[in-house]
């Protein structure tokens, strides 16, 4: 789940107030195109590659990367959807509910999975995603692609592909969509 939905979720959530546009829609598209090329380069092709978008922020990014890969390599890469709610480590501490569907194409055993998410922050969502993926078979390897790495990691997790490294204050909020990346604050309702 994207950080944004979690922070804005009732009952404790607030309203997102945008402050600075950091990336435009075009910048996001360029970053995704670069990430797609990096995936091909690093893995010397697209054999056994499955993209898995994290619900909900990572999903449109994963589909966009798959489209670029198809244009560049002429290969259709399967895209899975994953909601990590049941694997989070803050269940019972804060509101955790599944946001959207999980749909993983078949057994992942032997595949190379590229997890796609919008923002990498504490790393806890990615930790939950790694545990969830393990229930779908033993992937040959798992890589991580994010549009924004905003720092403040609480776990030893690092991304393989980054759209933009963006130092932030811990109380700021990053909003990612295909329309761009916006830095702002959450204000109590």
């Amino acid at each position: 789940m994207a950080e944004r939905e979690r922070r804005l979720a009732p009952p404790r959530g607030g309203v997102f107030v945008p402050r600075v546009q950091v990336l435009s829609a075009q910048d996001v598209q360029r970053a995704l195109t670069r990430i797609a090329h990096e995936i091909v380069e690093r893995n010397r092709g697209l054999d056994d590659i499955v993209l898995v978008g994290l619900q909900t922020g990572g999903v449109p990014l994963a589909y966009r990367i798959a489209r670029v890969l198809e244009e560049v390599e002429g290969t259709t890469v399967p895209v899975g959807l994953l909601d990590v709610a049941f694997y989070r480590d803050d269940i019972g501490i804060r509101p955790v509910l599944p946001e959207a569907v999980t749909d993983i194409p078949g057994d992942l055993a032997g595949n190379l999975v590229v997890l796609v998410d919008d923002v990498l922050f504490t790393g806890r969502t990615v930790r939950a995603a790694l545990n969830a993926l393990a229930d779908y078979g033993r992937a040959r390897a798992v890589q991580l692609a994010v549009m924004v790495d905003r720092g403040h990691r609480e776990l030893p997790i690092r991304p393989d592909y980054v759209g933009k490294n963006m130092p932030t204050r811990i109380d700021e909020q990053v909003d990612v969509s295909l329309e761009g990346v916006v830095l702002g604050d959450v204000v109590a309702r």
Partner: protein
Amino acid sequence: MTPRRHLLAVSDLGADDIAEILRVSDAFVEVGQRAIPKVPALRGRTVVTLFAEQSTRTRLSFETAAKRLSADVLSFGLETSSVKKGESLRDTVETVAALGVDAFVVRHTAAGAPAAVARWVDASVVNAGDGWHEHPTQALLDCYTIRQVLAERAGEPLEKVGTESFVGLRVAVVGDVRHSRVARSLIWATAALGANVTLVAPGSLLPPSLEGWPVVGVTHDFDAVLDDVDICYLLRLQSERGTGAYLPSVREYAASYGLNARRAARLAEGALVMHPGPMNRGVEIADEVAGLPQSVVLRQVANGVAVRMAVLFMLLGSGGAGDLGVSVPAAGG
């Protein structure tokens, strides 16, 4: 102390609550389809099933649900417990609670027993059927099954189908309404979602008063409503609750209120036949009708696990997000 949340009755829930439970159930249906149908969501939590009445499907369904959420399950039948030695229900429940229990799943012959347990212990309580009162998870899984079938017919993915399709849905609840907690929960649930509920029963098997019940009609003539029914919900004739005394004979009941092949053929096209189980074949439902494609009885059972996972997860795991029903203060009472 934050108040514990419980699921005691469907009549405590609003349409939004029901819709949210059905939505969360979708995620658990997906879990059930995996090679390893288990998630770590409730690791370290303890769920006790406390059944003071016979049950096969409900108990196994709740225990399967809890185990698939990785909770620890203690199974507890009053028949084999110290209650037999004369210990009161309250003392027994408090003793079990002292082991460190996060949720009690309670079935009891007395209406209100789960609500009493909720007052006695600091744990979430799920009503798994209390006397003639309510059986909320049965109604929720029935609603889930209806929504699933409607989504399939519309060719829509399940997550796109909300509960709007219940508005105006014609539901006939047939049989022993008087003694049926399933009927009470189902009537509240479907009516809350906008369905039009009609009761079909002999006068002796209707409750003494229908004041406040959200039903649009009552009839003693099953044949007269067959053409105008989308959901034909058959209730079990509850002989253990003394239904027999309310009827001249079971044969006469079956002739007037049983869904036989002749009546099934007259049902509107696409109508669903539902039954909460266990079925009395040849009484409320004919053997050949139970096997028809419009009968979704086994689907109801299969969906039960996912819906109960959703209920347990929303009560125990979501830290306030999935508010279900009333909160009863945990003070002694």
